[in-house]
């Protein structure tokens, strides 16, 4: 791994020491995560600047409708939400205001974005403490979060569909 390794202070012990507890141990543990965090976010930034988001948009755009019932126009907001919570949310608001998506589609899309929010940045950033412990590669962890985000969006999708059908039937009965 390119993140390398800290040297040992004594045999089998690196600079955080051994047997620490409480606030001091928490702080020392946090110190060990800085190199990984800086390296990972540096790489994410380079990937973004090299057009990774645009490439991902091309890949995801055609499958958004069948997968989550949201229009392909949300493609850029969708891929932006991998690395930023705020950019995705602001773009979603704009898309709904420009009538590029319906109110229900916005609710489904927000359900997707809300869980885990910026999944790539958060897994490397806020999840940094668990990266060295995890028995699964980080790509699989991101994959799992992505799958449950899509499942969550579909729960909302089908709930809204069911709710609309129920209301239509009830409305019909009242009117009839």
């Amino acid at each position, binding site marked *: 791994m390119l993140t390398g390794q800290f040297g040992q202070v004594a045999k089998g012990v690196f600079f955080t020491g051994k047997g620490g507890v409480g606030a001091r141990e*928490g*702080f020392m543990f946090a110190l060990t995560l800085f190199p990984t965090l800086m390296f990972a976010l540096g790489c994410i930034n380079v990937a973004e600047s*090299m057009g990774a988001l645009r490439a991902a948009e091309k890949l995801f755009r055609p499958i958004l409708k069948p997968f989550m019932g949201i229009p392909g126009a949300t493609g850029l907001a969708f891929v932006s939400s991998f690395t930023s*919570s705020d950019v995705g949310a602001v773009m979603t608001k704009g898309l709904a205001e420009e009538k590029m998506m319906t109110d229900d589609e916005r609710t489904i899309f927000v359900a997707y974005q809300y869980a885990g929010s910026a*999944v790539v940045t958060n897994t490397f950033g806020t999840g940094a403490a668990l990266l060295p*412990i995890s*028995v699964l590669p980080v790509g699989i962890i991101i994959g799992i979060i992505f799958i*449950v985000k899509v499942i969550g969006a579909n729960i909302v999708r089908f709930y809204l569909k069911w709710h609309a059908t129920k209301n239509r039937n009830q409305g019909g009965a009242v009117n009839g």
Partner: protein
Amino acid sequence: MAEPTAAGMDLQKVKPSIVEEFVAGAKKGFYIGAEMIAPAMVLAFVLIEFLNITGLMTIVGTAVGPVMAVFGLPGEAIVALVAAFFAKAAGCAAAASLYAQGTITAQQATILFPACVTMGTLIGHFVRIVITSNANKKWHGLLLCIPVIDAAISMWLTRIIIHFF
């Protein structure tokens, strides 16, 4: 002659080089570490130490043990999920601390990993995502439940996937 050079310099300012991009990202990583991870780590390690010293950890662990067993986790793991509710980083740090103390195994810490990220910072992100995107108020309650449901599914899913590794 001077003008094209100035325009060229402007263009350079607009499009930073790969090295500059990497450095900017690494700087962002440093700030995330200093502003989010380190405070969350101190909080989580202190919280768990407090629960251990007072003996509350054993009580909490026994009380919620049966619920957490559904996900293949000991009762004490609930501390990580509660911490995650407030901040993703605190949840992950709490799970790391539980692992460091030998309360949970590496497999169990891995089960908690996607769950802490998925349902973490529930209120903070509600404002940043649900409110910012101006989602229909009628569905706010439903949207608030979704990350928690997703987190539960992620724990089952991770538990299954770990068997293949």
